[in-house]
């Protein structure tokens, strides 16, 4: 039997989001190490070497750079499939690239798994070979509004919201979801600011936020703009009551290195929290493995990327085959209990569109230099402090 199973991994390795790609590379390598080696973790494939279903075959990752360009993502997916003969593809950070890469996979009947793409439209295209184990923006946003509702019940005043989002597919999707939920649940959007990603200046934007002075500021921004946003807010004397961020930059170490002192009490959605290590020690150990490679703790992205490979490998193992269709069927039949992951998820189980609806998002608060889970209550390790300091 095959001694090696190739899995394609397409990420941005150059250009403005190269940092994500490079961190992702480390996360995938960590997962591959665990799968290929023997580790005493309660994680699928950890305790065995390689994939027992394929006679102990090892996972080999083939990385490709899509430079955030859908056309390149597509070409790379195709190259990985036809030249490198990968049996599955995982990607891709940018949802725009996932659109084309997954389409190519569909054509070649090779499963595509979104480790971290968060655009809700992705799984609604009727593709057979598309899967996403992680939550999408609507699920994330829903968690935020659930949280608001809960706070409101306790008497906290949350009436007005200010949205601040970049003009990309991610920002648009995120704000659309938030707008919809705000309408449904009776929150007033007092500012809906769409800005150009990687702007040289955000002072005009921040002024508008300041003028709106909403109860909650909800940014959907990547690291660069996040840093600039926080710095500009400080410079223009704007101290929001509370910030509830749509992850992205707000779960990146770089942002907290830069402006962490101004962000005490910021809340971000996510699908991962290190405080899970208290309940599941393996989370801490795996995090240490990752940290040794990358110098960083797992964050929302790297943890999802890590899990992406675990889920995929698990399916290949169960499929006992490298045939695309068989792997797809195995993926469709996945049912991984939450405690066998490093995530606070209920479990991994895909609906017919390939989306895992049991990937419960969590809300994390940045307190004393690290993140603690504050929502939902069953996962929370601390009470939210509101307003932020």
């Amino acid at each position, binding site marked *: 039997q095959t001694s090696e199973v190739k899995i394609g991994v397409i990420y941005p390795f150059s250009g403005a989001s*190269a940092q994500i790609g490079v961190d992702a590379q480390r996360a995938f390598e960590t997962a591959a190490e665990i799968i290929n080696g023997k580790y005493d973790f309660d994680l699928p494939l950890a305790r065995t070497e390689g994939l027992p279903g394929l006679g102990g075959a090892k996972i080999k990752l083939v990385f490709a*750079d899509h430079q955030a360009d859908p056309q390149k993502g*597509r*070409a790379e997916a195709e190259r990985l499939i*036809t*030249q490198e003969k990968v049996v599955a593809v995982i990607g891709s950070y940018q949802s*725009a690239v996932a659109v084309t890469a997954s389409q190519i996979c569909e054509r070649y009947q090779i499963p595509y798994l979104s480790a971290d793409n968060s655009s809700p439209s992705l799984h609604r295209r009727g593709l057979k070979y598309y899967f996403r184990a992680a939550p999408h923006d609507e699920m994330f946003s829903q968690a935020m509004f659930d949280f608001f509702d809960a706070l409101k019940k306790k008497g906290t005043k949350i009436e007005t919201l200010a949205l601040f989002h970049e003009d990309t597919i991610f*920002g*648009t*999707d995120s704000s659309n979801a938030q707008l919809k939920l705000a309408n449904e649940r009776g929150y007033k959007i007092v500012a809906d600011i769409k800005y150009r990603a990687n702007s040289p200046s955000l002072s005009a934007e921040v002024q508008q936020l300041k003028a709106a002075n909403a109860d909650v500021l909800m940014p959907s921004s990547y690291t660069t703009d996040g840093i600039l946003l926080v710095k500009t807010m400080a410079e223009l004397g704007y101290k929001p009551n509370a910030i509830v961020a749509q992850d992205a930059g707000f779960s990146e170490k770089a942002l907290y290195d830069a402006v962490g002192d101004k962000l005490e009490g910021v809340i971000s959605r996510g699908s991962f929290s290190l405080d899970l290590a208290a309940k599941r020690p393996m989370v801490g150990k795996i995090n240490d493995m990752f940290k040794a490679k990358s110098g960083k703790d797992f964050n929302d992205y790297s943890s999802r990327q890590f899990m992406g490979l675990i889920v995929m490998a698990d399916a290949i193992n169960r499929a006992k085959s490298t045939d695309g269709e068989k792997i797809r069927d195995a993926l469709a039949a996945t049912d991984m209990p939450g405690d066998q992951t490093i995530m606070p998820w209920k479990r991994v189980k895909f609906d017919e569109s390939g989306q895992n609806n049991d990937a419960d998002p969590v809300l994390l608060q940045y307190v004393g230099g690290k993140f603690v889970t504050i929502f939902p209550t069953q996962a929370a390790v601390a009470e939210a402090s509101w307003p932020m300091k």
Partner: protein
Amino acid sequence: MDQAFIQRRRRDLVIAAFLAAIAAAVPLFVKDVYVQNIMVLTLMYAALSQSWNILSGYCGQISLGHALYFGLGAYTTAILFTKFGVLPWFGMIAGGLISAVIAMALGYPCFRLGGHYFVIATIVIAEITLLLFQNWDWAGAALGIDIPVRHDSWLTFQFTRSKLPYFYFALTLACVAWFVTWRLEDSKWGYWWRAVKDNPVAAESLGVDVFNSKMGAAAVSAFLVAIGGSFYAQFVSYIDPESVMGFQFSLLMALPAVLGGIGTLWGPMLGAVILIPLTELTRSYIGGSGRGVDLIVYGGLIIAISLARPQGLVSLFSRKRKPAAQPVREAVAS
């Protein structure tokens, strides 16, 4: 006396036909879809660059905003198809015409500008359009347009796996762009354009309608580039503003021509054949490392080539000066 000239033009035509025939046969031997994909892109960029060359190379109006026409072509086709069910073949023509009209409308104020002012105006106009599309909800805004792929068909110009139809279309487009250039080169337009490029004041004094020359070049150039954009939309089957109107397209259209020889018949082809595979291969085979080595190699090669051959690679093929070009020396004092 003109025999040499006529022969040279004939020779160009024969060589082109010969190369096209060879190119057409290549897919019969090269089955690897990745390589085929690179060939499709190479031919597409060759066509785009050839078209860009008409306005910027021959007529000297350097545009770094041709992504605008590329994007307009892509969007017109995609919108007409997804929203109105118009077949891409018609969308292509529509996109071409719209682009040509817009090129002329923009030329009206822009062609008064000289040098860098013009270049920056082209960049800025393309960028404004990109931003407008990025914010235009009806056209999909940032989410772009996902062109649903049903089944292989020439009618809808969609093919799920095979690259061959795209290959042959791109080849045709490249041939058309080349032929248009060839045809125009030895026509009133060709001479007018080059005259306008070299010295507009002198051109004017020789009866050249400088403004309309530029307009003509802009229209032809934009039309062909838009066809390329339409093709791209079909080929990738997903478009969003950044990926069809971004500045990088404007550059990628210009670079092959500059590399190969700007304002020459063969330059864009030659440049594309070298540059595009280089771009793709460096990214594919060294880009995955995440260390930026592909950029170092790619950037370094561009510098090296452009400095080694500032007049373009076609100059490697130009014949040695013939002694017939001896200057007149009238020995009067003897």
